[in-house]
């Protein structure tokens, strides 16, 4: 490992492994994958059909409630939230996982990764390129994995600072609110136009499926369903807007917690000679898990097991919960940091990362020095600055 990546790029919390140890680590992970794969069958098929039925029933129930009782505030609220939950599950536990091909073995065309298209603006085919291919192959590799900042955010000190990065936090907020739209546009690399690297026509030439899918999604949620509701036009429209918003905020939060917490590492493009075992290690270091209960795991589409998802992207996601303790055990044996924590802890790390990288590295360093100096003062001022200095501590910088 150390021969391929400069040691400094690895988190200080993990031991540097010898090439033999790296290979052994890979074998152990492979063995776990094979053992789990052998168990996959009827139970998993039943699970994904249950998830699909959950999505269908909640969608039918919430849309009917909005249409017929949307003027009653508590009904409106409950229906909008239920529709939001329905969209979250369709997006994350059903769509995302099916499109990874996790259920291709069932041989059911409606559960097939190549055909599936989900209920969000990003077209299935664009998603399979930007996410399944670019993001999962080049996880956290700067300049290749476009998910690092989605072209608009500065997420690591290795990215060159630009004045527009001062708006890192408000930019992240915008990304959160309009997440499905920005994901849909991701394949276009609009920032190339903003940075003057490509003409607008070239950027837009890849937007064919975006236009089609966006029209469909917009028409469906904001025209067809409200119009069908007749006098209930406004409550239905507002309910659909709210549901999409809920889903966007949730999806953004879970996805950012999966890759941009404090301990997550970024990599240089140095992948030519990477072995499968090294690929596993990069997935481990580039992802972070969240601890939560059954409902939480379900609502995250099991992306609370982001590490397992990245090591085994085509394994049915309902299996991650039983694989996670095994992966964690193997990591402990090899002295590798297994990045996990509560949703609150991981989210704090994400916000910190976004905030700190809105400033140039030098500025952050000098602020930190100043704070440390001030912290040495006695009395209440010193205590306050000690707190501030602690908050400004940030692992990768």
């Amino acid at each position, binding site marked *: 490992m150390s021969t391929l990546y400069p040691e400094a790029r690895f988190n200080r919390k993990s031991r540097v492994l010898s090439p033999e140890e790296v290979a052994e680590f890979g074998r152990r992970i492979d063995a776990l994958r094979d053992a789990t794969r052998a168990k996959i069958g009827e139970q998993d098929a039943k699970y994904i059909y249950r998830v699909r039925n959950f999505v269908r029933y909640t969608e039918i129930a919430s849309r009917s409630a909005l249409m017929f009782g949307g003027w009653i505030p508590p009904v409106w609220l409950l229906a909008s939230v239920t529709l939001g939950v329905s969209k979250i599950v369709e997006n994350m536990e059903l769509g995302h996982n099916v499109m990874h091909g996790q259920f291709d073995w*069932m041989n059911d065309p*409606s559960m097939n990764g190549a*055909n599936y298209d989900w209920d969000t603006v990003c077209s299935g085919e664009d998603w*399979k390129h930007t996410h399944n291919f670019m993001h999962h192959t080049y996880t956290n590799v700067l300049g290749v994995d476009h998910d690092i900042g989605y072209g608009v955010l500065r997420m690591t000190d290795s990215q060159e600072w630009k004045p527009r990065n001062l708006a890192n936090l408000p930019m992240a907020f915008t990304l959160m609110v309009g997440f499905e739209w920005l994901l849909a546009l991701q394949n276009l690399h609009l920032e190339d136009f903003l940075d003057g690297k490509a003409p607008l026509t070239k950027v837009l030439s890849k937007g064919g499926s975006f236009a*089609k899918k966006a029209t469909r999604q917009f028409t469906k949620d904001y025209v067809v369903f409200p119009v069908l509701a007749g006098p209930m036009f406004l409550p239905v429209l507002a309910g659909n807007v709210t549901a999409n918003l809920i889903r966007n905020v949730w999806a953004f939060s879970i996805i950012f917690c999966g890759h941009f917490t404090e301990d997550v590492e970024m990599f240089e493009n140095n992948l030519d000679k990477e072995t499968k075992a090294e690929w596993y290690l990069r997935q481990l270091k580039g992802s972070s898990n969240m601890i939560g209960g059954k409902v939480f795991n379900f609502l995250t589409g099991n992306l609370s097991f982001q590490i397992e998802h990245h090591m085994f992207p085509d394994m049915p996601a309902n299996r991650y919960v039983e694989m996670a303790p095994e992966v964690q055990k193997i990591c402990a044996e090899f002295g590798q940091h297994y990045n996990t924590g509560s949703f609150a802890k991981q989210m704090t790390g994400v916000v910190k990362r976004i905030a700190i990288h809105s400033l140039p590295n030098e500025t952050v360093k000098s602020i930190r020095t100043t704070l440390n100096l001030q912290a040495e003062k006695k009395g209440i001022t010193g205590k306050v600055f000690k707190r501030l200095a602690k908050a400004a501590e940030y692992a990768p910088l």
Partner: protein
Amino acid sequence: MKAPAAANCTWQAKGNDMQATLTSSTNYQPAAYKPHWVREDFVDFVLAKINPLWTVTRTMARVENIEYIEDDMVKVTLSTNHLLNRRFKTFKAGQFIMLTVTIAGVRHQRAYSLVNTPENYAKTGRLVIGVKRQGRVSNYLAKQAKIGDVLEIAPASGEFMLTEEATPALFISAGSGITPIVPMIQQALERSKLPVTLIYYSRDPAFRMELETLAAAYPQFDLNIIVDSAEKPAFFDVETLERICPDAATRETYVCAAPGLMTATRKIWESFGWSDKMRQESFLPIKVDENAEAQLVNFRRSQREFEAKGNLLASAEAAGLTPTYGCRMGVCNACVCTKVSGSVRNQVTGEINDQNNVQIKLCVNAAISEVVIDL
């Protein structure tokens, strides 16, 4: 002389019968991206709550009866709701349907010959298939399927059928190869008074009662059931032919049996120069040669054939094809495509996949038999 069961076998019929079936039954993806307004499986889900036979584009059939006809043969009767379900219109005697069953969460598709005649179907709305109890799907149909189950079927296909013009006919069959022949004989007898001869080798003859009833009703039907055994196997040769059907030269001959009998008859007909008067259909088990270096791979939609040595994606590229790919290591799912037929070995897991119509990843699979891919 025993034909392997229909299950676990590929259909190797004349022409491109598999193609006809598959285009209509699997998910053909148009080149241009077109998002759907309403998911078809959602509509099917709602419709199925009203009547399980109602669907948008799929064809469903209900199991009406499962009946043992011989020790290892089962007759399954299916109703297609044919008044409402216009997708399954009719079929020709000798054709087969593709039947899909879900076993342990996995959908399996197999071909089964129809053993009743189209006339009978038009009258009753019932399809009857002959199932030899051997292999996963056939065993499931024989042992676990229940009356009332609803299964997906694909419209009939296959080019093994009677000639347009009525002619004197000779049928040669062995084992479960009898299934497509039963309705063909019935149709041949019903449509003209010309002679029909059947030579049928079996250790445990199926449809004996049906055939004997036909022989009693139609004097022009010469029925020859040759019951052999493992100790005393019977073989077809020129002598047998001359003894049973001396005027074979004047007849249209239809053969459905295991490869041995198929080759034997083909050679005899070739030697007499009668090849153009013979139609064959066989159930061939997939031949897997694991040591084979190169295998013939056919990309059906692009109509390209190439030799693959090892990895399918790399071989396709070496042959100048450009299938979609991503990670080249089996994780991103970009190169997934439908394997129509043939066997492949997953180079990551070592698993061998010999099923028809399943999804495979080009980047981690190697062909170990001839393979047809829907690309």
